[in-house]
Structures are given as structure tokens and as C-alpha cells.
């Protein structure tokens, strides 16, 4: 083990005999570009709705639930896809979330929620995880589209305008505090207190 490490250390620390400096730097640069491009392409490929609903856990449960909601079908045809709300858009936060999501790959492989019954059983815990994330980042993924600065309260219903003025503008509450369950069905909320 020790001699093997030493041999590689010598190879890496000695100047190259066969390859020119230009080949090594340019080659390294090009290889880097290719690696980075491939990494990002793969990352973005996993950041699409098609990828999310390629697992039946997502396709049969949460995807079916979002379809009649305003975030899927509406008068202007603008819609939010899974990663718009569930994956941060900033690179660092996105990578952090992607690392957490490796647990979801585990879940998919070992069938943690592979039946409707298992899904319903886990739903509250999973929902609370998302609510905690939204509370912690001040509903960042909502605000990526719904920014308070551009909200015209006069175009809202009187009730909505008043609530937004009292709670959102003052920062007393964040979007998710009132808007739970807008895109997916809520689990048995009477059990929520016992899990908090």
C-alpha cells in the first residue's frame, strides 16, 4: 500500500517526459470543459419534471394532484414544474439539495413509498420536511416568481390584499405559513401537532 502510494506520488510530482506543456495545459482545459459540461448537463437532466415523474411514486401521487391546481393549469398557460418549487435555483443551494436528494434515490431503490398506502403513511413526514425547508428559506421558491415588490394588492381580492398587507408585508409570516397544500393534497393535519 505504502509503496504504491509512493510510486504514484513520484509520477505526479515529476515533470512530464512524453507530453508537451501545451498539450497538458490545453488538454487539461478541454477535458475540464467537457467534464463540467457533462456534469451540468446531467445535473439539469435530473432537474426536470420528466425526470421526477419517471418514478411512479411521483407520477401516480403528487403529479396527479398538481394537475388540477392553478400551478399546472390556468388561464395564461404559465406553469410551475416540480423543480421550480422543490429545488433551489441558486447553484450552491441546488447542489446541497441534490445531495440531500440522494436519500430519495435510496427510497426509490428500496421502495420506501412504492405503494399508495406507504406513500400516505409517509406523506405527513415528507410534507413537514418541505414546509420546514420553505420556512427556513423564507419561501424562496415561491418568491422566485411571486415577489412582494411586484404584487398589486388592488388586483387581489379584498380579503387577500388585507391578509398580505397584515402578514406578508410586515414579515410576520411567510408564504408557506398560509399556503400549504396549494399544489398537493394535505395529509391528515390533525396528526401534525403530535409530530411537531
Amino acid at each position, binding site marked *: 500500500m505504502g509503496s504504491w502510494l509512493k510510486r504514484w506520488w513520484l509520477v505526479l510530482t515529476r515533470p512530464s517526459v512524453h507530453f508537451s506543456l501545451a498539450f497538458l495545459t490545453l488538454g487539461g482545459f478541454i477535458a475540464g470543459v467537457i467534464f463540467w459540461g457533462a456534469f451540468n448537463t446531467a445535473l439539469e437532466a435530473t432537474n426536470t419534471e420528466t425526470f421526477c415523474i419517471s418514478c411512479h411514486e411521483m407520477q401516480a401521487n403528487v403529479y396527479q394532484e398538481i394537475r388540477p391546481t392553478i400551478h399546472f393549469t390556468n388561464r395564461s398557460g404559465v406553469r410551475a414544474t416540480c423543480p421550480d418549487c422543490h429545488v433551489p435555483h441558486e447553484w450552491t443551494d441546488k447542489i446541497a439539495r441534490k445531495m440531500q436528494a440522494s436519500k430519495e434515490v435510496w427510497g426509490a431503490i428500496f421502495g420506501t413509498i412504492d405503494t399508495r398506502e406507504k406513500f400516505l403513511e409517509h406523506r405527513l413526514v415528507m410534507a413537514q420536511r418541505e414546509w420546514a425547508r420553505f420556512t427556513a428559506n423564507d419561501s424562496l421558491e415561491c418568491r422566485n416568481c411571486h415577489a412582494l415588490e411586484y404584487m398589486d394588492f388592488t388586483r387581489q*381580492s379584498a*380579503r387577500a390584499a388585507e391578509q398580505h398587507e397584515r402578514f406578508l408585508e410586515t414579515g410576520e409570516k411567510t408564504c408557506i405559513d*398560509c399556503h400549504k*397544500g*396549494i399544489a398537493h*393534497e394535505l*395529509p391528515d393535519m390533525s396528526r401534525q401537532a403530535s409530530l411537531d
Partner: protein
Amino acid sequence: MRSLLVFLIMAAASGAVVAQEQIDALRGPTPLTDEGEPPRLAKVENRDLRRARNYPEQPPTIPHAIDGYQLDRNYNQCLSCHSRTAIEQSQAPMVSITHFMDREGQILAVVSPRRYFCNQCHVVQHDVQPLVGNDFVDVDSLLIEETGQSSE
């Protein structure tokens, strides 16, 4: 066979005559042999202004849109504003005390299961003309007609 044919022709002819007039208020002048054009979907009223009740026991109508509200075994979204504890923040009217009673008149801690599904009685209103005529007269109008005095 021939009599059946004659019958069918007669039926069709009489249908054509009837088609000229109103068959039914819901159906309009569309002949029975045709499929009527459905009216456009009307908008739900969303003015947040309470409406008068036609009689004291009438369940108040909902003065706002309730599109996509979850109302099932797991969650009652109406109560997220109208429950006893939520009204402080929402400033919405609280569910009436009668909704906390079981059918023996016993007051429960929460809304009674038989009153849980709000839209069994409370409904939104659409901005449309009534399709069928209605000659309901409310008690005030009756009193004024009989005695010249209103109830209030």
C-alpha cells in the same frame, strides 16, 4: 313495420312543431332531437360582501371563491379561517355554535362530524340569471302585505 314507420314520422313532425316554442326553461328553444348549447361557465362571485338571507335559518352563502379548497377527511380548508382559533388572524366569521352540537344538542369541543362538510349547505354564488322562475316571498314582504308593518 309500416305502422312503426308512420309513428316515427308523426313523432318527428310533432317534434318539429313543439320545437318552435319553449319546451323547458333549462332546455330553451332547442328541439328535443338536438343537443342544446351549454351556457358558458359563469364566474364565482368573489366580492367578500355578505348577502342577505331569505329566511333566518338559511345557511349563509359563501361570498368568495373556494376553487381548489381541500375539504376531506384529512383537512378542512374552510376551518383554516373560520375555526374558533383562526378568526383572530383571519377576521372571518366563526363557524356558528350550532355546528358544535351533536344531534342531542350536546356541545362538542370541535365542529361536529355531521357539520364538517361545509359545502353540503354553504355554497358559492355565480353571477348568472336564475334558469327557472321562483315566486318565493320572504317573510317581511308577507308581513308588510298583511299588516303594513315589517318584522324589524
